[in-house]
């Protein structure tokens, strides 16, 4: 773990240089250093790489987003886009061969990327907690569920056995488990998937964390059970005012739960905005394609739109925009240059189409476009942020 810290620290100057061309400053939501008092969590230029035998897997490759207290932020994307690694990185649960290579995770003024393991232990399960996709495998099969909640309570708070047990029963009742006192003594295998997920949520909320990370919390559940859990999460959010990072590939769940959304593709944030405008008018071609390709209940279409091809390998990423090869609006520059995260109408989009200096013309010559871009950059000094098309 010490290793990780060292490397993260040593990468800092590098990141600072990189920052001008990269996206840190371009991201409007992250703002300056002082402008983030109400941000509970601010992720800046975060990179998590996995050093495998077959090469470096750039699972998370420079992402920025922020989260206010009590807000529900959705992170959506397909498998391999880095959404789960992002959440594990925030929890600092990345182990060998993974490493935080660069970036900051500002949590309430503290950088989790460089925090020591001791500091993280105090935060994990206490101020930030996490619930996972497979509730049945996340509970220890040989302990009673109630005792597992008690353990979470006692790790972080000095509590008498009696008080902890009462609190555990209270939590079980809160997450809607009938006859919670009896259920306290149940073992995980005696409960259904939905019940186990409720227990996981009870554990996650045991210490009333400021941030709850829910990684595909309902994916393994049936729809009617999913409805129960979503309803529960909404109700609990109202009561405890916990900020939630909701990670899911189900855009329906997203639309229902999230206030703001981050769309990820191949380790990068491609679009970030509030949920309503994202669904109403998606800007990034990937987001557009994603929304057009899902069958929507009650809206029968003869054919679904298709995003051709597959996600590029994270070991061997293209030099330009990562979506370029699959993009219906690909321009020559897309293949050569990686676009910045641009601010367009109060949202962030990583796409050249919205760059003020670029003519969204698929036939434009790459060199010309590049010249234009460079001229623009020189005149602006700073990467474009405010300008929109």
């Amino acid at each position, binding site marked *: 773990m010490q290793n990780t810290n060292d490397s993260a620290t040593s990468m800092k100057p590098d990141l600072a240089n990189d920052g001008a061309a990269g996206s840190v400053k371009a991201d409007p939501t992250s703002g300056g250093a002082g402008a983030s008092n109400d941000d509970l969590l601010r992720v800046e230029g975060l990179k998590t790489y996995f050093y495998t035998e077959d090469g470096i897997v750039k699972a998370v490759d420079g992402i920025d987003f922020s989260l206010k207290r009590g807000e529900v932020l959705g992170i959506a994307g397909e498998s391999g886009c880095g959404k789960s690694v992002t959440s594990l990185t925030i929890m600092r649960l990345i182990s060998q061969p993974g490493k935080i290579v660069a970036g900051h995770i500002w949590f309430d003024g503290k950088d989790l990327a460089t925090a020591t393991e001791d500091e993280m232990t105090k935060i994990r399960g206490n101020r930030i907690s996490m619930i996972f996709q497979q509730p049945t495998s996340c509970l220890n099969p040989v302990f009673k569920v109630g005792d597992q909640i008690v353990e979470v309570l006692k790790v972080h708070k000095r509590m008498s056995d009696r008080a902890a047990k009462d609190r555990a029963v209270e939590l079980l009742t809160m997450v809607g488990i009938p006859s919670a006192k009896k259920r306290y003594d149940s073992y995980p295998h005696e409960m259904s998937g939905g019940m186990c997920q409720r227990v996981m949520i009870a554990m996650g909320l045991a210490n009333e964390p400021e941030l709850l990370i829910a990684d595909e919390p309902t994916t393994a559940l049936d729809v009617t059970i999913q409805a129960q859990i979503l309803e529960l999460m909404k109700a609990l959010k109202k009561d405890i005012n916990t900020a939630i990072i909701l990670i899911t590939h189900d*855009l329906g769940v997203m639309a229902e739960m999230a206030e703001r959304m981050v769309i990820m593709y191949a380790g990068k944030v491609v679009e970030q905005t509030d949920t309503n405008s994202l669904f109403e008018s998606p800007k990034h071609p990937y987001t557009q394609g994603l929304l057009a390709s899902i069958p929507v209940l009650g809206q029968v279409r003869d054919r679904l739109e298709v995003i051709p091809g597959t996600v590029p390998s994270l070991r061997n990423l293209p030099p330009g925009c990562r979506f370029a090869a699959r993009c219906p609006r690909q321009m020559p520059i897309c293949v050569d240059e990686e676009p910045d995260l641009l601010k367009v109408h109060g949202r962030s989009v990583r796409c050249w189409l919205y760059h003020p200096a670029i003519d969204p013309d698929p036939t434009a010559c790459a060199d010309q476009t590049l010249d234009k871009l460079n001229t623009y950059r020189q005149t602006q000094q700073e990467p474009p942020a405010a300008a929109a098309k």
Partner: protein
Amino acid sequence: MATNANNVNELDNREPADAIKPSENGANTPVQHITGVGGGVTGDSTDYIMRVQNLKKYFPVRGGVLQRVVGQVKAVDGVNFDVRRGETLGLVGESGCGKTTVGRTVLRLLNPTGGNVLFEGRDLTTLNAGEMKKTRRNMQIIFQDPYSSLDPRVPIGQSVGEGLLIHGFSREEREQTVRDMLKRVGLHPEHARRYPHEFSGGQRQRIGIARALTMHPSFIVADEPVSALDVSIQSQVLNILKDLQQEFKLTYLFIAHNLSVVEHISDRVGVMYLGKMAELADRDELFNNPRHPYTQALLSAIPIPDPRIRRDRIILKGDVPSPLNPPSGCRFHTRCWLAQQICSDQEPEWRDIGSENATAHPHLVACHFAEQTKVKGLANEIKEQLGTDTKV
């Protein structure tokens, strides 16, 4: 009966060469949807490819030192439905409702505990091994998990061509068909010598589809074919399935838990709950005029990817009961908000309550109170909220 039997014989007597040249049948001939034929409710004039009658599949539960049978999981417990030639019949339900078991049992990959499966007019449950092997050429299956559905030690070309090998086609025919099929599902024929692990999930699913189609079957059970795939890959596979249906005149029994997907691809939809069929009707009829309380709850539980739509949700109490010891009467009564005494006493009849749109197809439902359960319906609800008709 007699004509149907002849039909099967004809199919069986086809020269292998005929069977493996699907492309000759042309992509331009659209499927004749028999489902529209008027007055076919009673069944005689309708061309059924499969009729399932009172199908039952129980799995024994063994316990104790002597491994004696101590109980039975009634995975499928008396299911009736027909599949019309050329249609896609969607089968939805939550995990444990028995939909996958139905898919396996109608193909006789599992032997039914009771009931009949008439395929092309012949009762599959009475066929001997040889007859069954012949029939298998006409009925195939596509699986959910693209990772376990291909033998990791066999090159994919061999997997795709295995059916042809089993049924005695020559090497040249096999190789030709494998190449054609791989091309047809959007893969390079040169990939035939590669192993499954070299492909992505979506590509593997295409390989699975190619394998199912090499023998030019008429009936395909698609068991959750897209639920393990990423969103952007799902639509690719769904479109391929639709295209192939047109091209090869396929009939699908499409099993899924995702109602949006089922709505997209199906002509008719059946809803299962705890080993029983709860409701079965035309797609639009089922989604807009669901009559079984379970169907209504299921439909209301789906989150719609449009934040403008806020729906009143029916939140069901509790979990699905164990199929080891299903509730008496109507199996849904333990979670049903309309349940009355009769629901726990008496099993509701599987009956036709008539479609709203007066189509030819029956609206079958198993609920005592089906006449009194009318709801607003999904399309109307969305229309009200958005002020537009979303039907495209």
